[in-house]
């Protein structure tokens, strides 16, 4: 392409960072140059390249972006559009170390505001962040030190000196006994950094079994198991895998969606950090069954430990010969909730802004790079191992008729023992609350938010509802991503709702009008209500909010906009605000 180069040159550090990813640049020889289609096909390396310079310097300068553009044949404006889309790229800033302080609904209950004030007072470079997926150990900070990398401090010690020094590599606590568990049985028990430990615990036997069974039989087992997707849409997995396998074309992809960003959700982090080889094994089976020769594990940018563990796991598994004819790559997100939406995730892997696409066409035929693609979230993938290992029938006996298998729930907020709990479908919310030690601090039950920011608030009556797809649908609640956030009776729900509204405003990709402007108008209305400055009467504000909710739900491109009013509307129905 005829790119117009930027005037600014990269520094040596920036050039080295990019070259270490792409290899050294070939000098212009004046006689021959190969480019065209093959040059433009490197676009998918844009995020890794931006990460490389951001990691090295704490910023993406003009010189660095220009160099990346040139190396990857991506127009500078396009690269800029991509870089400014993702919260973790600091475009054209001074660089240096930085803290990302979670001030979302759970960490807010755990003193995030105080933490921000302390950092402010200490002159620490920080910015506020949406949920970091550390709700079981709030309040949380993710920090970045150029050249060293990202780390997470959670819970943050009272003195801010600890913010940058904390190197927590433990995946968090599993409160249940390993013997009672299926999906989480290795977490905290088997060394997640050693393939030998994994193999010793039975690892990669399921892959061998899958190959013994053959793709069709695996799909049959999956169908028999009744396993449905754990990401929120609850699509039958056997049918999905079969769809990818049967889709026309030789070039196919499978993707593990580890971009877990729904506020209040942290179960996939626990699995990726605590049992990374299981994710790799599941992906190897996914590729084998669908005929995909390329796989991606897309890990949330705020999960540095998970990324490290998965990179190491993939490397060891490949070296040990478990990934024959299957190229598995770990890709890191860069701070965009929307990229958990599957089509936005495709765009992100391709090196674009994480803007969702209209469906249909569906990923099964038109996924990443417009090729047939299978995509599942981490919990679902780990559950497929259970199906293949023990058979679909055995799996189907767990849970209820329509909601089979074990399920992970992330319980956080005003509870004594926040954490991830593995239970059978059909367990009630009240039983889950008991597992988490009940409402903390002797306060009373205020409300529960099920399914995260995109979910719904429920009152105490929800405690008796069995957690299944069918029961929650009937009760008008949702399991969504498995996030369960409890609030006590002292909660300022107006503030919580405003934070949720702000979350959607901040995380809207900006592509479609209902969501881009609707989320702003929604937040403005809640701010007015919160400050007692309603435009007209409160009733008029509610009509406006209802109108906004309807247009966002009806007319947004993707699930983000379609659910951006869900929690707020449910809270208003409950009279919480």
């Amino acid at each position: 392409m005829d790119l117009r180069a930027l005037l600014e040159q990269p520094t040596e550090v920036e050039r080295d960072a990019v070259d270490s990813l792409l290899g050294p640049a070939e000098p212009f020889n004046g006689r021959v140059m190969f480019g065209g289609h093959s040059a433009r096909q490197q676009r998918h390396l844009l995020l890794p390249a931006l990460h490389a310079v951001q990691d090295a310097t704490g910023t993406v300068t003009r010189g660095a972006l220009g160099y990346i553009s040139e190396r990857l044949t991506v127009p500078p404006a396009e690269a800029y559009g991509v870089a400014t889309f993702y919260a973790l790229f600091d475009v054209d800033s001074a660089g240096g170390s930085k803290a990302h302080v979670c001030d979302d609904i759970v960490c807010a209950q755990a003193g995030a505001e105080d933490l921000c004030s302390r950092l402010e007072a200490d002159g620490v470079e920080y910015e506020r962040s949406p949920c970091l997926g550390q709700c079981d150990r709030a309040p949380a900070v993710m920090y970045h030190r150029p050249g060293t990398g990202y780390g997470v401090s959670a819970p943050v010690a009272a003195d801010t000196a600890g913010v940058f020094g904390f190197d927590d590599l433990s995946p968090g606590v599993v409160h249940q006994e390993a013997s009672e568990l299926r999906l989480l049985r290795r977490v905290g028990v088997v060394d997640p950094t050693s393939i030998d430990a994994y193999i010793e615990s039975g690892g990669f036997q399921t892959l061998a079994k899958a190959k013994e069974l053959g793709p069709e039989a695996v799909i049959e087992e999956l169908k028999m198991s009744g396993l449905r997707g754990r990401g929120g849409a609850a699509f039958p997995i056997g049918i999905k895998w079969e769809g990818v396998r049967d889709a026309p074309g030789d070039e196919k992809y499978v993707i593990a969606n580890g971009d877990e960003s729904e506020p209040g959700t942290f179960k996939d982090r626990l699995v990726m950090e605590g049992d990374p080889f299981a994710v790799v094994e599941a992906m190897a089976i996914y590729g084998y069954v669908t005929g995909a020769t390329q796989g991606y594990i897309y890990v949330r940018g705020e999960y540095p430990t998970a990324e490290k563990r998965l990179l190491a796991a993939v490397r060891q598994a490949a070296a040990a010969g478990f990934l024959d004819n299957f190229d598995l790559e770990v890709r890191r997100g860069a701070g965009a909730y929307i990229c958990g939406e599957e089509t936005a995730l495709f765009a992100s892997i391709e090196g674009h802004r994480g803007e969702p696409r209209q469906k249909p066409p569906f990923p099964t035929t038109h996924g990443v790079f417009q090729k047939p693609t299978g995509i599942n979230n981490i919990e679902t993938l780990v559950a497929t191992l259970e199906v293949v290992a023990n058979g679909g029938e055995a799996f189907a006996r767990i849970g209820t008729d329509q909601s089979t298998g074990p399920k992970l729930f992330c319980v956080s907020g005003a509870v004594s023992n926040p954490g991830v709990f593995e239970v059978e479908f059909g367990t009630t919310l009240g039983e889950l609350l008991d597992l988490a030690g009940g409402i903390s601090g002797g306060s009373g039950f205020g409300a529960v938010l099920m399914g995260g920011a995109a979910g719904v608030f429920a009152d105490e009556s929800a405690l008796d509802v069995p957690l299944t797809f069918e029961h929650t649908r009937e009760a008008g609640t949702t399991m969504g991503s498995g996030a369960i956030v409890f609030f006590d009776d002292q909660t300022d729900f107006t503030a919580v709702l405003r934070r949720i509204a702000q979350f959607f405003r901040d995380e809207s990709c900006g592509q479609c009008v209902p969501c881009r402007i609707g989320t702003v108008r929604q937040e403005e209305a809640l701010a007015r209500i919160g400050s007692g400055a309603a435009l007209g009467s409160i009733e008029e504000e509610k009509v406006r909010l209802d109108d906004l909710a309807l247009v966002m739900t009806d007319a947004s491109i993707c699930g983000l906009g379609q659910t951006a009013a869900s929690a707020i509307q449910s809270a208003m129905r409950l009279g919480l605000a």
Partner: protein
Amino acid sequence: MFGAGGGTSSYQEIEETDLIIMWGSNAREAHPIFFHHVLKGIHNGARMFAVDPRRTSSAAWADVWLGIDVGSDIALANAVGREIIRQGLTNEEFIREATEGFDEYAEFVDDYTLARGEEITGVPADVIQQLSHEYGSAETAQLCWTLGITEHHNATDNVLSLINLALLTGHVGRYGSGLVPVRGQNNVQGGGDMGALPNKLPGFQDVEDDALRAKFESVWGAEIPAKAGKHISLMQESMDEGVLKCLYVLGENPLQSEADSQVMEKRLKGLEFIVAQDIFLTATAELADVVLPAAGWGETEGTFTSSERRVQRVRKAVDPPGEAWGDIEILSALARAMGHDWITPTAEEAWDEMRSLSPLHGGMSYQRLDDMGGIQWPCPDEDSEGDLFLHGRLWERPVTTMKAPFFPTPYAAPVDTLTDEYPMRLTTGRRLDSYNTGVQSGRYASPRRIHGVLDLSPEDGDSLGVQEGQKVKVTSRRGSVEAPVRFDRSLRPGLAFMAVHFPDDLDVNVLTIDAWDPKAGTAEFKATAVRVEALA
């Protein structure tokens, strides 16, 4: 090609072809909307090769760029031809049924080995081989060129050497496969269509053909000279010989647009009488004895013919200023003043008379041109919709019309040779926002304008010890100019470039050589030997 002069294909074909070769054409800048169609082809999966000494903005889109030495095109084409034959990628059926002279051609190009091709062109042999392989095996291919092929002393041979490749592979006369010379000026195709060529009457009808001439004479009521006239280079020769004494210049600026402008100035000043008919008082018009102010674009009616042979209406949107007249009015009045009984026809009346004589245009009434958004010739009658591509006849079996001949074309180096005294190759061309000598394009405020500069590789800048913007002296065997330097990373050391648009600031034609092609009359603007010196 093989008869009427025009590109064989339509723009839409390049959107659907498998392989695009841009040979000596920077269409991205010189023909931007044509390049839109190229880009659609690329996005539809076509592969692209660019053959150009510079890695131009067009070449930047190519899958493979071949940075040949200026003027070595024939050597490359012949080496490609030999390699296609050697690899067995010729279309034998097409060659047998639709062409003539293959054996002579094959024998002729046998000397042009890959090694010799590399030696002459500077392009590695394996890359020449790759081009050969892809052109030879593509299902469909479009071979496009512009002035990089034709502004040479051997322009005609350059073009023929490319045509040979299309004949070898059958990449002509089929939808998606063709030969595409993209025209540099709005109506240079139309000018040819209308017989503004020394040897043709309207519709490319030969002036030396008695029957054709008689047809025109009967309608025009006048006798037409039976001999072909002179093209512009021959005219210059005649001026030098003192034979040509009077020049009537319509809408041209030869003082600034022709090679070796110092010699051109002497020639023009040596004439007895010059009439200049133009919309501006150009440098040439300033030398004229009589200047006839003409109405320009937007002020008159008529037609243009585009590079895909599409004849389209041009219309009057505003009144001409002052005393300017349309060309038809001027010419008619002039005829009357010379004692002829001419009316002043409307553009449509003149057109209708022309199309009654030119079979290519017969069916192109103004009404049909309006209704159909232009028509691509040939369009012999009002039932014809025109043709998307030419030479489909070569795929009829048997071919009942003239078969397409191979023309063995010997490589000949540029006339202006590189020596120690003149070690650097200067080539010329256009930039995106400007046009020819800037008579029109110089009058709008382009934010992209690069005024008169010498483009050099940064390496040459270093060895000369000059910074960007610093002035240097550029000297050829004919003259010298001073120009600020601009670094262009798409140039290799030893190659320099100047645009032609700013003759008043920087007259590149002081440097260029007036060596010209004996068949086409085009001068070798593209290859000048120069010396560049830093100014103290």
